[in-house]
């Protein structure tokens, strides 16, 4: 017998490599050995020594005291986890700890949920025998931050916060200063939380075993609450959250350690930015515009009006004069319902969603190359890869948990290649940062593929067995004019070749891409080049490889899966194919429309041409976030009847005729699908606020009014229906999703899929298709007059149009959009930090505050569009991806000058004012 050891003289099997702590706890329960410095998501550290056990080599033999958390168990050892001497040792250690810890447990916020308190009880502390000595009980509380709080008089120096900041978030904001008895936790250079570089992820607060670091929501308090496990509403990472609530109030949010997606971690948005849910600005009742003013209405009145308009336009003009925009913030079930409503009830394929403006080129490009438009692998594969290629994505800001994981892997030595015009946080850690000119992804990827071919790094066997079109492709790639591509992109041949070799030589290379790939004139082609690069090197169909889009919104994957696209129905079936039409018609019980509908930009064009009478927009602020704001406004003004279903009075809602109050993710149940195809449960925490309704029920109410027999909204009922029409949802049932969800395709027996294309592609063979670089019309036409390129991006604390995050404490962290300008460019225009800059494109002008930074390269400026005060999209262009019509947010030809303030709309506003403005 091997791998056996004894606990109190009884034999038990152990797993090779496990520690004594894990061995004993596995067999004897979590409480069998107390610990203080150990935490589920941190490496063993060995500071508290409370986990010490006696170890002997023979029964009742000579024992040695060892810390169980970092000592591996060995065959034949005798472990005595609670011998008399060990119990005494633990008690004595804790007695020492409480000589320097306040004894005000009754008034401490973690009373009843304090690990020190628990362990003190377990070891039987009844008093302190030491004469009174020095202590640190007079340390001051740090209340500087909107979320993070520290009271280091309660610190026991277990380093869990320091390690969480290092090992989980990778931010190094926390450390210890001084030494010995006087050592203490510091933030930055012994600053406050607010003044430090803290990113407010809250990992330290969650890790802290006492109340030394907590948050304003008292997330570790033991208040009587209900806990609901759900899925985050922000980005496509899909963090699992545990929401603590009491009655109609959300108290706090934490990240469960057992979540596969986020393993006890989440970001400032997921953990702390939830106060929007009952913000005074929340829409609590339907509104109908009467004489230019919104007036409160009952649901019946609103429904009556909408119903009559739909009937009127449908019979008067035909169903194609109506369009719907569904929301990636809503559940799969709601998205399914909205597209079903448009197709089966209204009778048009004019249904689209925000994927249009983000990852539509990904879906299309990957479908063309592989047959499936979704991430090929899982985030977990990061731990199996040997090279990461990150293109046009800034995950430490936009997908913080995935970004933190990438950073962890890269810091430990996995080479990272970053293609990004901006020096993003991860670019600083990269082995190769190819800081290309915005809009030249195709040029650089073609260069890389050229060198991979030239240096003989292609996977001949994979190409032979799994792909087609290679010969033609290689003919093009081999004769690529690399000098020209280098000149165009600003990336030297040497840099491109070095990066190509790093990628090509790795046994497993994994790519991630974001909107810096898709939101371009050549977005779809860039996606196809990334896919080609993966096929060229055999990086498909196994662990640690693949093409992995970082999906932007929480459910943007799901909305497309559910058929929120004008050309594909639920499950990506081509609605122009007769057998597909037959299938949908049979399933929906009505004849479905047969021709492709409008994409969002086409809807706006149609509106301005009098071809659209009504549009129903759910949870998308097209005015603030779609390009060329003035055009969007004109389109909405040209549409007879605009219905906006929202949480807040957004810029778009202001143009509505009827506003319907929808429900936030806390107020309904359903599923979200994250960027790795993982369908996860969203569980209702609260009733909808005020008179708001779950969005799915609103759609169903309208379906029923229009005579379609759709049962009321229940997540299990909806999933049952969806599983019958969406092939890759066949095995997804509400009850079998469990805590971790399932990654589609899910077979009928419930088996899910971590890695796509393991043996074959959806389309049979992977398809190589070469596309040469082409300059965007925006640059071609405007670069003479507008010589700078503006590229837009995201920041960590705000989310998209900011409707939610601007109504939380996050505005105290970042209160405005700023323009990043390289120091050389700033000097050329005599612009200094904080100056107002007038930024002008062929569409218009905006005034925006300057931030001089070398994060952008000369000739390029960048900003975010989280704040309606600036409305950067007033100047973004009409150019779209040539294939998928995704707008080119990333390349805007602009010129700039120091502003006299004429266009300073609200540039000088301070935080408080900005909030009241929004509230007003």
């Amino acid at each position: 017998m091997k791998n056996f050891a004894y606990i109190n003289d009884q034999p038990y099997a152990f797993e090779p490599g496990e520690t004594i702590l894990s061995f004993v706890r596995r067999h004897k329960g979590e409480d069998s050995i107390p610990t203080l410095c150990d935490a589920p998501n941190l490496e063993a550290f060995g500071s508290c020594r409370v986990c010490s056990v006696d170890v002997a080599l023979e029964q009742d033999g000579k024992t040695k005291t060892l810390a169980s958390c970092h000592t591996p168990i060995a065959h034949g050892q005798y472990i005595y986890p609670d011998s008399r001497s060990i119990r005494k040792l633990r008690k004595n250690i804790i007695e020492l700890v409480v000589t320097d810890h306040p004894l005000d447990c009754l008034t401490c916020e973690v009373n009843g949920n304090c690990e020190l308190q628990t362990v003190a009880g377990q070891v039987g502390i009844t008093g302190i025998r030491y004469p009174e000595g020095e202590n640190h009980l007079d340390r001051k509380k740090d209340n500087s931050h909107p979320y993070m709080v520290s009271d280091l008089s309660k610190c026991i120096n277990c380093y869990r916060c320091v390690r969480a900041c290092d090992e989980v978030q990778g931010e190094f904001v926390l450390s210890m200063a001084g030494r010995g008895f006087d050592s203490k936790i510091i933030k930055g250079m012994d600053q406050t939380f607010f003044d430090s570089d803290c990113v407010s992820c809250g990992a330290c607060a969650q890790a802290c075993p006492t109340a030394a670091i907590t948050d304003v929501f008292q997330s570790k308090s033991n208040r009587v609450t209900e806990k609901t496990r759900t899925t985050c509403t922000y980005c496509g990472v899909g963090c699992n959250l545990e929401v603590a609530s009491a009655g109609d109030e959300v108290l706090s949010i934490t990240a469960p350690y057992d979540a596969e997606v986020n393993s006890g971690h989440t970001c400032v948005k997921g953990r702390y930015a939830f106060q929007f849910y009952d913000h005074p600005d929340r829409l609590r009742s339907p509104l109908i515009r009467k004489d230019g003013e919104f007036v409160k209405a009952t649901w019946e009145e609103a429904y009556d009006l909408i119903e009559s308009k739909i009937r009127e336009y449908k019979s008067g003009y035909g169903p194609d004069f109506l369009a719907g925009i569904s929301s990636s913030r809503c559940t799969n079930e709601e998205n399914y319902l909205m597209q079903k409503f448009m197709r089966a009830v209204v009778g048009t394929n004019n249904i689209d969603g925000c994927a249009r403006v983000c990852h539509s080129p990904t879906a299309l490009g990957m479908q063309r190359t592989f047959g499936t438009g979704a991430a090929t692998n899982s985030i977990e594969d990061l731990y199996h890869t040997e090279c990461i290629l990150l293109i046009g994505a800034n995950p430490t800001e936009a997908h913080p948990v995935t970004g933190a994981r990438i950073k962890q892997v890269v810091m430990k030595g996995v080479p990272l290649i970053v293609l990004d015009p901006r020096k993003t946080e991860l670019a600083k850690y990269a082995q190769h940062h190819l800081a290309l000119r915005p809009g030249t992804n195709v040029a650089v990827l073609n260069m890389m593929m050229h060198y991979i071919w030239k240096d003989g790094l292609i996977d001949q066997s994979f190409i032979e067995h799994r792909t087609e079109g290679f010969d033609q492709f290689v003919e093009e790639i081999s004769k690529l004019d690399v000098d020209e591509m280098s000149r165009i992109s600003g990336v030297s041949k040497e840099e491109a070749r070095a990066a190509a070799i790093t990628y090509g030589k790795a046994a497993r290379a994994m790519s991630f891409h974001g909107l810096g790939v898709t939101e371009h004139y050549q977005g779809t082609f860039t996606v196809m080049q990334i896919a080609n690069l993966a096929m060229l090197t055999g990086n498909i169909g196994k662990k640690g490889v693949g093409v992995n889009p970082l999906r932007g919104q929480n459910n943007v994957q799901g909305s497309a899966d559910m058929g929120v696209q004008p050309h594909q129905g639920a499950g990506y079936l081509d609605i122009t194919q007769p057998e597909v039409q037959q299938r949908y018609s049979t399933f929906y019980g009505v004849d479905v429309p047969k021709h492709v509908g409008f994409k969002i930009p086409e809807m706006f064009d149609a509106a301005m041409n009098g071809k659209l009478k009504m549009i129903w927009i759910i949870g998308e602020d097209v005015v603030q976030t779609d390009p060329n704001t003035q055009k969007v406004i004109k389109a909405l003004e040209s549409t007879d009847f605009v219905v906006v279903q929202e949480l807040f009075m957004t810029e778009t809602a202001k143009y509505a005729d009827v506003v319907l109050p929808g429900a936030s993710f806390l107020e309904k149940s359903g599923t979200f699908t994250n960027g790795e195809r993982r369908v996860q449960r969203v569980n209702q925490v609260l009733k909808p606020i005020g008179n708001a309704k779950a969005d799915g029920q609103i759609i169903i109410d309208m379906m029923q009014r229009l005579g379609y027999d759709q049962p009321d909204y229940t997540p299990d009922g909806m999933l049952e229906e969806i599983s019958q029409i969406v092939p890759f949802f066949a095995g997804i049932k509400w009850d079998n999703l469990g805590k971790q969800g399932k990654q589609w395709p899910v077979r009928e027996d419930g088996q899910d899929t971590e890695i796509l294309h393991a043996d074959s592609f959806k389309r049979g063979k992977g398809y190589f298709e070469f596309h040469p670089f082409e300059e965007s019309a925006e640059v071609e036409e405007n670069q003479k007059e507008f010589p700078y390129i503006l590229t837009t991006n995201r920041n960590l604390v705000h989310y998209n149009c900011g409707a939610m995050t601007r109504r939380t404490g996050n505005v105290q962290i970042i209160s405005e959009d700023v323009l990043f300008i390289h120091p050389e460019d700033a000097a050329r225009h005599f612009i200094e930090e904080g100056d107002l800059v007038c930024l002008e494109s062929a569409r218009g002008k905006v005034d925006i505050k300057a931030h001089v930074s070398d994060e952008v390269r000369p000739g390029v400026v960048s900003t975010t569009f989280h704040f309606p005060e600036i409305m950067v999209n007033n100047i973004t262009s009409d150019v779209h991806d040539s294939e998928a019509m995704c707008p080119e947010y990333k390349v805007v030809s602009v010129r700039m000058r120091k502003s006299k303030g004429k266009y300073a709309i609200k540039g000088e506003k301070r935080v408080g004012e900005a909030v009241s403005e929004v509230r007003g």
Partner: protein
Amino acid sequence: MRVARWMPRSCAPLKPNQGGMSKNLSELSGRKGLGNNLFERIAEVSAVPEGDKGLRIEKLAEEFLVGTANVHGSLTFYDFLRPENQGKKVYVCNGSACLCARTQEKVHEKLGHHFSADEIGHMTCLGRCHENSAFHYDGKNYSGHAIEHIEDLVHGDRKNGLDEYRTGHIGNPVLTRARIQGPGAYQEMLEKLVDTAPDDVLNEIIASKLRGRGGAGFPIGLKLEGCRKEAGETKFIICNADEGDPGAYSDRYLLEKQIWSVLFGMQIAGYVTGASHGVLYIRGEYPEAIQVCQEAIQALHNHGLVGGDILGTGFGFEFRIIKAQGAYICGEETALINSIEGQRPEVRIRPPYPTQQGLFNKPTVVNNVETLAALPFILEHGGAAYADLGTDKSSGTKLMSLDSAFRRPGLYEVEMGTPLRDVIDLLGGGFRYSVKAMQIGGPLGGIVPVSEIDNLNVDFESFSNAGFLLGHASVVCIPGDFPMIRYLEHLFDFAAYESCGKCFPCRLGTKRGHEMMKKAVNGEYKIDRTLLSDLLDTLEQGSLCAHGGGIPLPVRNALAYFEAELQPYFQ
């Protein structure tokens, strides 16, 4: 169910180990290699005026991609780097030997005529235990009569800095009569080294049974073998020249007088393990040693005996000196590694052992100066010749540092197994005044009452069997009229002051122990015997490293042998 871990153990390319330190910081520091060393860069920042320091810290952190907290955390750890010590102009030794010799009050008083109280700091042991009255001024150490010439000194006359002490030996000398005394002999030996297969050299070292002289007595052969077996192109040999034990100056002797043996010993270790980087981590308290070492390395460079391809053999080895910044705990090998990386020198957990994952997460051998300096003898004469010296389990020789209580203070080399009485009488010439006990082996070594002298031989087993510790074999004499309770207070003070603060028992226990002793000395408190016993058990059983784990030994010795003297301080 799939494993839900933040960082699965399988994370490539690291081995599935836990570190107890920041792997990330090790890697990030290692990205810059030894050439641009974060620790040295942090030390540079310490001298920057307070107003500019923040910006410099930010820039440094940005360059190394670490946090400002990491830089600040390291800066505030070391005596020489702490912001509050930046105004210090002169440092008075407060080591055990100077304390027992009672010379330092006078040194303080004399310095007080030339420096303000704020300008006078402390350093713990300048290694001038043979003549005491030690202080550090303007980058140099002074002792003995130098304080009498303080007037000249502050006016620029530095001639009184050099110290002299006796050397001698009992049995066959290995270290004090070393063969290599310059580049010439060095080259001859190097040629012999590269003519021998690494495995054969290793076998000789294993056969020598040489055990580490830093305190733990671990066989160096096993360590080298472990490191040799590790895969990886980059490996390090670290010479632990952070001899912080008050009372010991044997490493100082070797660095200043036998540097060639030390350097060549490192090169042998590199040859055997496949390491091509040798780091000498030398105490900042030993400026002269650093200088001698620098000059020797330069001479080796001039003779082409270090570099990428030495003598055309394909064997490459480079030396790098890192100046320590005043933290006793850096003598602990994992704290030392953290220190070189610029991390806070806190003790790491084991496993992984440094031979598996040491400096910058690479396989690393850390050995004491005295251990490495013995390797050239083994190469020259063979492992058996070395094993013939000393006793069966403690082979070879041991350096002993005798303090000024002896008639002939000095640095002596004795074969292991030599009776302690011979060392005291034949080499030391007996005591100059009444001595009741000796602390042998540093502050964590045992307190040996003079009544036990005849029962002890100088070897690991004799000492440990009798309940003492050979350690560094430094001898600090406690005068007959020196109150033992004061000495215990001093030990706890030292232990608390030098605790890294990582593990709970040491951080809190040494402090509470010091408070108990101090209050007892001041008559404010009678010690609770059970409580003290519990405290000592807790420190010994629970501490992460030998610092907290070691302090109970001398305390227990004192309680056992000086019970009557200590009785009045107990309840």
